[in-house]
């Protein structure tokens, strides 16, 4: 047998997706890495731009304003009820782009893989990303793969970046909230963080708690088309509703007043928070959004939210106030008042 046919035979040996593991050659830029891309990533993400095999993706620039966002994902465990690090990585960046009111178009995906990581898991995660991207009507058009020695990366880390286009006439930004505006949320608080924490703490469930990880761009498109006066959109991820509302208060130099009784929390989430000593307002969400809009448009916006599958439990939870101290105050369910503070320190590590 000559050298050429021996070489082509070894190149045609496919990856052992059932039992194989990632090793350092898969990140070295050579044939092994190509195989990883061709047999795992390209079929999973399945789009013409990626199929060209270039180091970059080229596309026509759309007129108007574009937005770009990036996020890294280090969630542990990698697979959890309701999702995995892959679908989370797609939803997270799609949502960050969508929170500007933009329509997300393209994503990049960078993988840092620990030596020894099972190929079966990598394939499952890549497929999950592909499905999430297709459901959100975006494409993963470019990416990167690195492999690091055992012990240098806890299984897998993913970075995604995304770009999108803002429809004309839409001005949505964290500094636009004004006294008198209504504050709405799209559904129940605390599902994602509790799904992760409860899984880690070995809690069981009579009824399953799943992460709410979801792409919100479809919902946002409906909202923005119906109510172009929306001032602020943001998804309350790490730090939960509490952190996100405080951020907005600081950006917009306003205060807020909420009604605790209006904030939906599922009974299982409440129960888990009681057991774990958590406050649902500080717990991450991965498929919910906060919307701030002029009071006169709140009713209409609520209707749009509730007509969408991801906004069925939407509520108006309070209003923006004039407050130089920028406090988020809340009427407690028994009729007293407290404030909602930024949380000190990392309450829940590696949640997204």
């Amino acid at each position, binding site marked *: 047998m000559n050298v050429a046919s021996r070489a082509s035979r070894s190149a045609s040996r496919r990856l052992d997706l059932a039992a194989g593991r990632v090793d350092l050659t898969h990140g070295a830029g050579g044939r092994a890495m190509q195989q990883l891309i061709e047999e795992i990533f390209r079929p999973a993400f399945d789009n013409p731009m990626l199929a060209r095999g270039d180091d970059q993706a080229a596309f026509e620039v759309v007129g108007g304003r574009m937005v770009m966002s990036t996020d890294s994902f280090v969630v542990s465990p990698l697979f959890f009820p309701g999702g995995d690090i892959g679908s989370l990585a797609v939803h997270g960046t799609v949502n960050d782009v969508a929170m500007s009111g933009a329509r997300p178009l393209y994503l990049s995906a960078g993988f840092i893989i620990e030596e020894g990581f099972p190929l079966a898991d990598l394939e499952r995660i890549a497929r999950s990303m592909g499905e999430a991207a297709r459901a959100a009507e975006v494409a993963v058009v470019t990416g990167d793969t690195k492999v690091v020695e055992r012990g240098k990366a806890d299984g897998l880390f993913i970075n995604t970046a995304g770009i999108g286009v803002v429809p004309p006439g839409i001005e949505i930004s964290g500094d636009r909230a004004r006294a008198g505006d209504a504050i709405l949320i799209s559904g129940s608080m605390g599902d994602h963080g509790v799904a992760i924490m409860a899984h880690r703490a070995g809690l069981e469930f009579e009824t399953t708690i799943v992460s709410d990880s979801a792409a919100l761009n479809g919902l946002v498109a409906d909202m923005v088309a119906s109510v172009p006066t929306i001032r602020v959109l943001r998804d309350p991820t790490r730090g939960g509703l509490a952190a996100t509302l405080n951020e907005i208060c600081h950006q917009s130099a306003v205060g807020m007043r909420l009604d605790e009784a209006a904030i939906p929390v599922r*009974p299982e989430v409440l129960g888990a928070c009681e057991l774990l000593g958590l406050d649902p307002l500080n717990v991450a969400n991965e498929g919910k959004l906060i919307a701030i809009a002029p009071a006169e448009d709140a009713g209409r916006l609520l209707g749009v939210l509730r007509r969408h599958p991801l906004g069925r439990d939407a509520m108006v939870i309070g209003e923006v106030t004039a407050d130089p101290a920028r406090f988020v105050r809340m*009427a*407690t369910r028994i009729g*007293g008042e*407290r*404030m909602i503070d930024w949380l000190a320190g990392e309450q829940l590590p590696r949640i997204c």
Partner: protein
Amino acid sequence: MKHLDEYRDAETARRLAASIHREADTDRRYRLMEFCGGHTHAIFRYGIEDLLPANIEMVHGPGCPVCVLPTGRLDMAIRLAKRDGVILASYGDMLRVPGSKGQSLMKAKADGADIRMVYSTLDALKLAEANPDREVIFFAIGFETTTPPTALAIEAAAKAKLGNFSVFCNHVLTPSAIAAILEAPAVRDLGAVEIDGFLGPAHVSVVIGSQPYEFFAEEYRKPVAISGFEPIDILQSILMLVRQLNEGRAEVENQYIRAVTRDGNLRAKQAVSRIFELRRDFEWRGLGHIPYSALRLKDAYAAFDAERRFDEPYIASEGNKACACPAILRGAKKPTDCRLFGSVCTPETPLGSCMVSSEGACAAYYSYGRMRERTQ
């Protein structure tokens, strides 16, 4: 959730508030101390003071085991954690408390000490079983609620002949702390505070029963209402105290009657008396030296006593001189009376234990109530 939601009901809260407003005598003040840190937390988290008339003042007590642990004892724990081969297991609250010289368990962990957060003594035992070549020390703190679990863990370790498990014991006693608040001599030097009545702790009372408080009610003529944790429990207990004071009674009333009996939990008390005995003396942050106020392991269990096993000395330490935790723990000062509060001392950068522990008055006020200054 049964036995929970009913005690968070808005309409019941309104009616209780209405009764309190009607019955509170406008010609007098009511200074009521909630002893327990869990009650302090609930009062701020639900905004209970907004439902009370202005002449009822809640004074925050020292019932926060993290808060009353003197700096010197925390320093000992840090030194133990830094020893070779040691795994220190600790409840989460203690990790960020500042010790002497800017140290803390969290910082020691970042420097390489093996410190693990546990939710229960059972986790610490499992650590010892899983790491036979390491010395596992459980950093035990708490009033009478956490002491029985520690006792059971030591018994289990003795039964399993675990040679690598020990407890650094800082368990303290509630009645001693209440006595210290009321006793003129100890408090005179540090500043006396006039308390009209006490909200008794919930879970501590489940263990020790309502009987131990009868001494205070009789001897010092102060009414006590043992209260559950929920906002309705607290409001109902406040109403009970207002009525006692109006009627000139000084009794122990048990609002938390669904969980507290006069004798308490005999099994738990027996487990504690099998393993522990009283220390002659123990220093408390904010309350000074109090005799017979804390526990240590009996000689029969010396092998499980980290202080004897590792011969670590206690070096008293003052902590930050401007920190008002000592006065705040006695109810003599409010968090806002402390020069450091909210400026240099915050939950992100705590200088004193009252700010670190979620049950500390400063942390509760900062996180839930500091907007109040602005409305004045």
